[in-house]
């Protein structure tokens, strides 16, 4: 039995990284470490605009939240925010309890997120 985590990555103009996450984002998820390394690699490349499509995320724990906080911290240094798409009530409740809903920008679609970044006055690369 394993907690499945699947991530689809799209890089837009080498500036915006869209992470579509399926399944469970917990430290016990298979490939969680790989996911963290991959996210860190994108940040080292200088990417700070991330769109997290969590439409298909079923569960998240403090380890998964930790990854999102690191992304949000990095984005904040560039005066912008991490875009999040999420409609799972349980995941949203965890975001609320952890207070990270206050440091994320919630939108309804990836296109809306792209529009936000296009109009964003954050520090450019």
């Amino acid at each position: 039995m394993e907690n499945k985590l699947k991530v689809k990555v799209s890089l837009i103009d080498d500036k915006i990284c869209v992470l579509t996450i399926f399944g469970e984002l917990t430290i016990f998820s298979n490939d969680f470490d790989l996911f963290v390394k991959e996210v860190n690699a994108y940040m080292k490349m200088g990417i700070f605009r991330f769109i997290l499509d969590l439409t298909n995320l079923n569960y998240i724990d403090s380890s998964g939240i930790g990854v999102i906080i690191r992304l949000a911290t990095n984005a904040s240094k560039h005066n912008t925010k991490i875009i999040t798409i999420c409609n799972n009530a349980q995941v949203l409740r965890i975001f609320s309890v952890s207070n990270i809903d206050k440091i994320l920008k919630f939108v309804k679609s990836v296109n809306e997120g792209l529009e936000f970044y296009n109009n964003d006055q954050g520090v450019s690369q």
Partner: protein
Amino acid sequence: MIFKFTISGKEEEIVEFEKELLDILLRIVGDEEMVAHEIHFCVHEAILNILQHTYKWNVNLPIDIRIDVTEDAKSNKILKISIKDLGPPIENPIIPPKQIEKFQLRKRGLYMISKIMDDFSIEPLGKNGNITNMKKVLTLKNNDVPII
């Protein structure tokens, strides 16, 4: 009702236990599915805390979990969860932070447990081990059936 489990820190045992835990919680809370998921999250975080900080990822050491479900005089369900580890006892009881900085990583799990549960503490157990105690009062709704 009392439920007892002993698991190791092995991933497959934890995943299997957490599935069973969620089934139990969903039966206990009735229509309040979100509450079941929140309590499930707290138990997950407490186990993760033991594995990370007490057992330092030695996944072979045991973790004992006990869930007691009782009722108070108003027929509210009282859920008490205790989780024992056999790691080195902590020097002082752990007090979760009342507030947390926007981008703070450390202690966020403890903070979240304390926001969800009505009582939460981690205390040393003499010379060997620690106990994590959590309590949640589930207010009886009109359509709930008392457990006794």
